[in-house]
């Protein structure tokens, strides 16, 4: 009887959360906001549906940065995206970083927020980039614990993003796809699927990207990231510095055909081209999404 009741609660909770994800608004196509194109953005704002902001840029803001955030929030739906919450840290979350993240979420009132499945600091040392969590049961437990703590502070739906990684420590107990699936299902979070990272990892670590997509819970995918990177020797680097290449567009189409994606963000950080080039990529993404009925 108790086991049946527990199962019923678990099923009910999953169903409610999944309907939470299903009830999220379809935002369409957007950009990771970068200050250099602020003016162009407002001149062409009808062509950008929403923006993703890097929350770190608005911690302890100057009056100018505060005004910028308010201006953006007034004209666009904003999705706060973090870099250093470090949900993969065995030491736990930085409470000050989480507190500041929560303040920004309260300020901009987003439909969801997101962070990476990674660790960025340990033992007082900052890595300076996203480092992979080992694909082990302990790794899953750490992420689940940290996500639970984050959700106690921020009640808005939380999306977890897959990262690109250069270090694959041996001793993993599961594949990357299994790890992501277990993390997403145990945390009951939505997914920010970085299609570029899927492609780069598949090349760098020798697996089939489409098969990978078939192994993760696509029904949890809410938002996508896409952009081009560069090659350093034989290794693909997720540098956010180039136009999106055909291989990544193909993967995006695979995902848009199958996952209930609500929005896609072009994450161009480096080597920023004329704004029209960014809009051209957004138009292509918009057309793809429309073809698969993701947005109007």
């Amino acid at each position, binding site marked *: 009887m108790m086991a049946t009741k527990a199962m019923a609660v678990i099923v009910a909770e999953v169903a409610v959360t999944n309907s939470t994800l299903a009830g999220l608004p379809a935002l369409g196509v957007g950009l990771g906001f970068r200050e250099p194109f602020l003016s162009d953005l407002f001149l062409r704002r009808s062509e950008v549906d929403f923006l993703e902001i890097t929350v770190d840029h608005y911690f302890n803001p100057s009056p100018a940065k505060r005004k910028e955030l308010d201006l953006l929030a007034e004209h666009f739906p904003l999705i706060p995206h973090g870099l250093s919450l470090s949900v993969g840290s065995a030491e736990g979350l930085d409470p000050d970083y989480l507190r500041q993240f929560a303040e920004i979420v309260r300020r901009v009132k987003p439909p969801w927020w997101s962070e990476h499945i990674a*660790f960025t600091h340990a033992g007082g040392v*900052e*890595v300076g980039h996203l480092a992979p969590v080992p694909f082990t049961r302990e790794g899953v437990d750490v992420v689940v614990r940290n996500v639970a703590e984050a959700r106690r502070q921020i009640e808005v739906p939380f999306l977890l993003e897959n990262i690109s990684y250069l270090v694959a420590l041996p001793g993993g107990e599961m594949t990357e796809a299994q790890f992501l699936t277990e993390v997403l299902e145990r945390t009951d979070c939505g997914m920010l699927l970085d299609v570029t990272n899927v492609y780069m990892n598949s090349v760098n670590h020798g697996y089939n990207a489409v098969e990978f997509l078939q192994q993760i819970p696509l029904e949890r995918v809410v938002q996508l990231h896409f952009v081009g990177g560069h090659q350093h020797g034989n290794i693909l680097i997720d540098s956010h510095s180039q136009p999106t290449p055909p291989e990544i567009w193909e993967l995006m189409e695979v995902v848009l055909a199958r996952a209930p994606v609500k929005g896609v963000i072009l994450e161009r950080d480096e080597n920023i081209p004329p704004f029209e080039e960014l809009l051209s990529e957004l138009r292509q993404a918009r057309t793809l999404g429309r073809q698969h009925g993701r947005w109007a």
Partner: protein
Amino acid sequence: MGLAQVQQALARLYTEASLREQFFAEAEACGAALGLSPVEVAQIVEATGQIQFFAESLQRKRLNEVNRLLPLTRRALGRAFGTLFLRYAATFTPRGVRKHQADAIHFADCLAQLHLTENLAPTWSAELARYEAGWIAAWEPDCFWHTRRFQYPVRAIAQALAQGQTPAVSQRQLGWGVWFRPRPRGGVWHWFFTSPFLKR
């Protein structure tokens, strides 16, 4: 032993070149000192190439950020900027949300020290770096007042470089940069005073 120790060890291996060198030369002893089990040490050793590549990519990322923060110094030093930065980056790892700004300021200080022993060319490049670092320091959120003394007319040098010109600097000239922010987190005012008394 366990994920916390592994992550602490990895964070240091990713960011400390000297530790990396020591670890991959004497993995067992070094790993034990880091609190790792023999199995964990073996796993990390197996990923030596990947760890080294990742560590180097982290330094390139830092260099890209500091390029942006010290653009005139980068222009003045040319390729030497990158070489000098990577030497410095092996000795210091910045922290915090404003780590790239901290990196740029520390690097400028490092250049000033290097110039005493290595005679960087152009001769005023270290002072230019300190001038650009002065601007970065002045824009820190809690900065109200910042001053620096210079041995060269760095403001004129910076203006020439910003306009794509080659600065015509024939001699040293003592100068002071003053940065003032009258309102908390507001705009920064700047003055540069030169002294006629130090010219050689």
